[in-house]
């Protein structure tokens, strides 16, 4: 018995050694997730499993987005549309009495692939900012079409008649079974996408991201590769949508909201692009952040927003990037802790520096504004006074010219003008004096 156990451990260790770091991290993550049902009776109950399911579902979506962002260099801002399309396709099938695995799942995947092919054929022709905006627009289009789908709930969404039947049984109704189903799908997605990125297809895709011109020079047309990657990634996201719809037995246009697409990008970047386990970590981290913060305050987005800005400004590479940096230096745990402390201090110092810099800049700006403002004001006042002086002179000369012989009303008019101008001048002088003394 002991020998058998040791043999099993040895075999597992050997298998682990054969894996790449990325695969080891992913295997660790999935193994930890697999233990969650054991933990749930002690801690959190079925709520823990619910969060775990959500995390796995969003991990699938994030991994598929990583195929686009990390390998393909295509930043899709409409990826959440496919969550909705997958869920709607399966939900519509279910509402017509076709809620079986053999119909609903292929329907979800096919609908996603079809929409991806139609929109991708246009979107993939462009790059960079254009691609971001076009995918955003197409995602929004899907959102509005879902809202106007009156026969299927429209704005209110569509309630599924129940979870998808597996071989005629209600297997997925069981909490544990559904949890493991999401886990298996997530693991399968991980294997598929990491294999795909490592394959010839993936290498061409990455080559195109690095240098399109060179890849074209050695005979690769960018368009079919990118379109294929887009369709594959979106179909996988449709799978995530199918699972999401199954989890809550409901689908609404809110699944496709563009902020959801933004959140998917956040997951990928928070986890770290360029790795495949990164998006899983990112999905976990983002959902945990959301869970914790939304319990603290209903305004949790007001905290997440600035946090995102800070992550972009100060933490490039995300969580996976940080792990990679530490790994490369081969540190002992003690060194790692010391390094972590140093980094935290550094980050705080940098943030402090940033705040100081900003306050200094704004103070300087205000001072310059005040200085130039007061200089300009003084100039204007000087000009005004010169005009007034000229007016006084004019009035006096006028009075002198009309002389004693002129009609009294003419002389009175000149005197009036003179006194008005003089009092205005005196008023300005007094105001200036008061202003200076203050």
């Amino acid at each position, binding site marked *: 018995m002991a020998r058998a156990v040791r043999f099993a451990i040895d075999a597992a260790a050997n298998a682990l050694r054969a894996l790449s770091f990325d695969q080891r991290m992913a295997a660790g993550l999935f193994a930890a997730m697999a233990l969650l049902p054991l933990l749930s009776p002690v801690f959190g109950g079925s709520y823990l499993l619910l969060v775990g399911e959500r995390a796995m579902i969003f991990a699938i979506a994030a991994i598929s987005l990583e195929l686009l962002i990390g390998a393909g260099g295509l930043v899709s801002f409409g990826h959440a549309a496919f969550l909705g399309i997958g869920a709607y396709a399966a939900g519509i099938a279910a509402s017509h009495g076709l809620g079986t695995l053999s119909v609903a799942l292929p329907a979800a995947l096919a609908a996603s692939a079809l929409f991806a092919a139609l929109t991708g054929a246009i979107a993939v022709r462009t790059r960079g*900012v254009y691609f971001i905006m076009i995918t*955003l627009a197409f995602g929004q*289009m899907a959102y*509005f079409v879902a809202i106007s789908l009156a026969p299927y709930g429209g704005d209110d969404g569509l309630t599924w008649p129940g979870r998808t039947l597996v071989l005629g049984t209600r297997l997925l109704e069981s909490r544990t079974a559904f949890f493991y189903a999401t886990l298996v799908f997530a693991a399968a997605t991980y294997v598929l996408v990491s294999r795909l990125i490592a394959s010839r297809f993936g290498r061409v895709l990455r080559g195109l991201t690095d240098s399109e011109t060179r890849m074209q020079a050695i005979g690769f047309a960018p368009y079919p590769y990118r379109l294929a990657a887009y369709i594959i990634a979106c179909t996988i996201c449709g799978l995530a949508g199918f699972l999401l719809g199954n989890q809550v037995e409901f689908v609404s246009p809110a699944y496709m909201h563009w*902020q959801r697409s933004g959140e998917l990008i956040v997951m990928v*970047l928070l986890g770290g692009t360029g790795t495949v386990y990164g998006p899983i970590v990112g999905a976990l981290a983002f959902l945990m952040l959301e869970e914790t913060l939304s319990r603290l305050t209903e305004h949790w*987005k007001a905290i997440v927003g600035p946090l995102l800005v800070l992550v972009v400004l100060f933490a490039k590479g995300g969580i996976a990037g940080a792990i990679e940096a530490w790994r490369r230096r081969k540190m002992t745990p003690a060194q790692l802790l010391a390094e972590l402390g140093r980094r935290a201090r550094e980050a705080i110092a940098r943030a402090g520096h940033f705040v100081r810099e900003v306050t200094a800049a704004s103070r300087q700006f205000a001072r310059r504004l005040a200085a130039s403002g007061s200089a300009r004001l003084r100039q204007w006042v000087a000009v005004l006074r010169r005009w007034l002086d000229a007016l006084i002179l004019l009035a006096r000369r006028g009075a002198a010219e009309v002389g004693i012989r002129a009609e009294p009303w003419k002389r009175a008019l000149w005197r009036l003008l003179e006194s008005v101008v003089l009092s205005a001048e005196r008023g300005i002088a007094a105001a200036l004096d008061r202003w200076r003394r203050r």
Partner: protein
Amino acid sequence: MSTALFVVQLFNGLQLGILLFLVAGGLTLVFGVMDFINLAHGVQYMLGAYLAVAFYQLTGNVFLAVALALPASMLFGLALEVLVFRHLYERDHLEQVLATFGIILFLNQAVKIIWGAAPLHMPVPELLSGSIQLMDGLRYPIYRFAIIAAGLLVATGLYLFVKHTRIGMLVRAGATNAPMVSALGVDIRRLFMIVFGFGAMLAGFAGALVAPILSVEPGMGDQILILAFVVIVIGGIGSIRGAFIAALLVGVIDTLGRSFMTDALRLVLAPGTARAIGPALASMTMYLLMAVVLAVRPAGLFPARGRA
């Protein structure tokens, strides 16, 4: 459909197009000159509306409120530029998207905290209330005409500014080749600041203009931001002229599509089917327009020279 209804919808479309132009104009300049994708531009439109309402509650005068909202939204845009955006110009688009997305989340929520989630309203000013008789059975509100007029005025002003002033010349040069402009001794950072503040002000102006006719609520900028993106993609990044024409096109086509798509479909389909797919198709029209334009001209209708 009657002629009167058609004309009314045409004017509504024009008015939407004008507003879209005010938002997209600033956005396309910022894109063109700084190569910076600013998702937070829609939030600046929302802030313009909120600032106008806030100043209206303070002063009780709509004109004064709009006039005050302009410099206030410009100052806000400049503050954002100095605090955050300035540090992002050299980053790639993905990071810009993420940071400005964070700002949207924050500002939408901040507005909710300050002014509450319920929509606010501002009255139409006395002077511009009422409507004009255009033809038989067709009256159109004066205020909507005022919006169209104000937008056309701004468009003309912007055209003159960009075509005939020194700063406008630098902006055009920056849109074509920013590093070269910088190499020729122009303080490109200051140019960026001017363009940015100006864009923020235009968006804020659009927001303040619609405050009397729409409900002012958190998230009102998100939808117009995406429409502005569609406009920019159709018009070509960095092109004011493209933005103007595309904005009017999108505004008119979207409005007409929403009002007449179901009726038009009824001519060829059964009424039930038409009613079912009409609204869905109507909400797709402008995206289909974008798709068609892109299929024919991937860089938009009027691409600014010097970029792919």
